């Protein structure tokens, strides 16, 4: 069967030598969960995932875990992702585009600052007694 070419495998092994790969069972600085129910996929979740893969690849990072999950029940606000930095509360981002996710990646995932404009909700409700 057609496999990866020898050059492809060489490239991968070279990255492994430079320590730029995720070893099985490694620790992560951030986990990014792209919601991929039918609603998410129809709304463009795969484009978001691909954009995230490109960010990680472009910046040669090796401590970011990209994963996915199902429908979160907010289908009208897809595509959605949940960003979880190690030791911090997870943040859900909604109505994403490729540009928005790039901004979130730079500011939140790498910089640690939540991008409030795209987040689902940050304490906007008040209870008055």
């Amino acid at each position, binding site marked *: 069967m057609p496999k990866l070419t020898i050059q492809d495998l060489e490239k991968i092994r070279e990255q492994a030598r430079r320590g730029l790969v995720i070893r099985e069972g490694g620790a992560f600085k951030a986990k990014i969960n792209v919601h991929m129910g039918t609603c998410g996929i129809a709304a463009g979740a*795969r484009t978001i995932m691909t954009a995230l893969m490109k960010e990680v690849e472009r910046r040669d990072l090796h401590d970011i875990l990209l994963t996915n999950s199902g429908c979160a029940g907010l289908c009208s606000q897809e595509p959605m992702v949940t960003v979880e930095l190690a030791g911090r509360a997870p943040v859900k981002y909604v109505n994403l585009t490729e540009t928005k996710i790039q901004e979130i990646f730079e500011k939140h995932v790498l910089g640690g600052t939540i991008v409030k404009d795209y987040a689902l909700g940050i304490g906007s409700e008040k209870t008055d007694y």
Partner: protein
Amino acid sequence: MEDLSLHILDIAENSIEAQAKRIDIRIEENHRLDRMILEISDDGRGMDKALRVKALDPFVTTKTARRIGLGLSLLAQAAKAAAGKLTLRSRPGRGTKVRATFELSHIDRKPLGDIAQTLATLIVAHPGLDIRYVHQADQRTYVFDTRDLRSQLGGISLATPQIVAVIRKAIQEEIHKIRRTS
């Protein structure tokens, strides 16, 4: 869904939800018979008759079956629009096989789309999953299997986006090659 590769991603996510450890994706494009077949089989928990019926109905669905309901009915609709049909074979504990047929040249047949992006997404998000992709375009066949890949990579996780990027490009090229003159 814009194209068939997105439907494949969606159905495969159903399989993962159903605890599948292995997913087989098969695509056949036959110009002589003017036929296209898309098959997705898994070793997940499977469905009984009641759920099988429910799974194809976009309106009757329970909350827990929500994802199964909508995705399959959308693929059934896509097949029907291209003079084909969807069949669903599933038994509890025996996995599920979804088969959609299309008239290849039908004006309403959705394009195949970016299979490499779908496979890359599945691989990076579910590095432990076994995926076998077999694509037959008339006389030519391309086979991609994550188990072969894993044995070639040793202890390197398939969750590494850098590696998946290399794999994605390789898949893209191979699929382009077999479909070139078709």
